């Protein structure tokens, strides 16, 4: 896919910097709406979890984790459910709009992890974690990034499906059944949350490492001086 590229000339020095329009408006909008709703859903979800911080039978109850109230949203179970039942719709809407846009625009090709990306994963891991050389790339996203973003979208979908199975274990009993029953649906929902938190953590580390122009691009769409050579 041809990217929209401009060359910016500094009036004083005459220096030329490249900038690429990397994130279309819908992607940026969905990114931030999704970030906010994920934050609210995790916070309120943990408050809901505090009402029964365990998995399995209520009697005998074995509390798995005591999650501190300070790191939860909603104040009490009823309040947390209000946030959860409200933001789940915003989360779903932003997810559907994002995926729909990516498919419609063909933009998904940038981030969809496909089999031909597999050989590129190890060199990127070596670069990030073991100070190996940085593999050259003509694409906006390297194989490891594609893997991370594709996984995040799959996790997002699973978070919604497991959530539906907990919210509607009768109307969608087949969904709860597929997840191993109501008990397991609740456990999967919880584990998928942690997987998403792990993604966000890694994502934020990368944002810090890649600097300001990369961060700004998720607001303006334009990335100045990209690390890759767009075609």
């Amino acid at each position: 896919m041809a990217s929209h590229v401009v060359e910016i000339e500094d009036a004083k020095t005459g220096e030329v910097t490249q900038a690429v329009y990397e994130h279309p408006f819908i992607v940026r909008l969905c990114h931030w709406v999704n970030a906010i709703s994920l934050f609210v859903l995790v916070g309120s979800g943990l408050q809901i979890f505090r009402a029964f911080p365990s998995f399995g039978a209520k009697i005998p109850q074995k509390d798995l984790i005591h999650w501190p109230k300070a790191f939860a949203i909603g104040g009490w179970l009823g309040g947390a459910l209000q946030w959860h039942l409200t933001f789940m719709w915003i989360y779903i809407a932003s997810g559907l709009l994002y995926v729909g846009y990516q498919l419609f625009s063909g933009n998904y090709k940038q981030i969809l992890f496909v089999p031909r990306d597999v050989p590129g994963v190890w060199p990127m891991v070596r670069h990030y974690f073991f100070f190996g050389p940085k593999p050259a790339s003509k694409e906006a996203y390297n194989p490891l990034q594609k893997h991370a973003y594709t996984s995040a979208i799959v996790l997002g979908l699973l978070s919604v499906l497991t959530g539906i199975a907990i919210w509607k274990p009768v109307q969608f009993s087949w969904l709860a059944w597929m997840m191993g029953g109501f008990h397991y649906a609740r456990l999967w929902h919880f584990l998928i949350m942690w997987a998403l938190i792990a993604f966000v953590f890694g994502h934020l580390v990368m944002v810090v490492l890649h600097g300001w122009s990369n961060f700004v691009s998720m607001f303006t769409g334009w990335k100045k001086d990209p690390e890759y050579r767009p075609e």
Partner: protein
Amino acid sequence: MTEHINQKKFKSMSRRELLKLTPMVALGAFAIPQLQAPLLKAGVGFSDWASGVLFRSGHLAPTFTDAEVAPFDKFPVNDYDVDDPEIDLNNWKLTVAGSVEKPGQYTLAQIQSLPKITQNTRHVCVEGWDVIGNFGGARLSDFLKMIGSATLAPYVTVECADDYYESLDMATALHPQTLLCYEMYGKPLTREHGAPLRLQIPTKIGYKQAKYLTKFEVASELYRVGYWEDQGYSHFYGL
């Protein structure tokens, strides 16, 4: 062909793109105290509306084998006030009122004269735990026929000996698994499980399934929804 622009142009392009994100500010309304409560109420209201749409009268909640039923002593008890509101079980009657042809006082024997249904279903608590139990009682739909209820009335409400109160949409009240429950595990309801009569509704969350029933009404309007609902819980909470 790459476009050449100056820095000023790039800044204005970037600013224009940034401004496109202004609709995001709308989400900030959730941070304004005066707007937060009505917005969350609307969100829960939308979820309740969706729950109503998703409810299917003919769709049965999963039922389980006797082997899957939790032992009686592992069936949790949640109350909001007391485990035993000290009902005089010998003289207990259910007061029936509202849009019905035969209002008045109904004895347990009258309710037990209706066909008895027993079912192994899952009880799901809003707290997150669940338990499979064995329940016995009369279909609420049969009782509604007995009292000559207007089935087009939208709601059924109940009041309880512990001052708890609840309401149900008529579609759920008429669901074949919705019971006026007087037995658990083949024995009369124990005091902590709501003796002598409780609602048992496999298609609803636990707090809808009121215990210690004393009054039953068929209503065309709700002036209150339920003990927990009126404090901010979901009104419909169908499973």
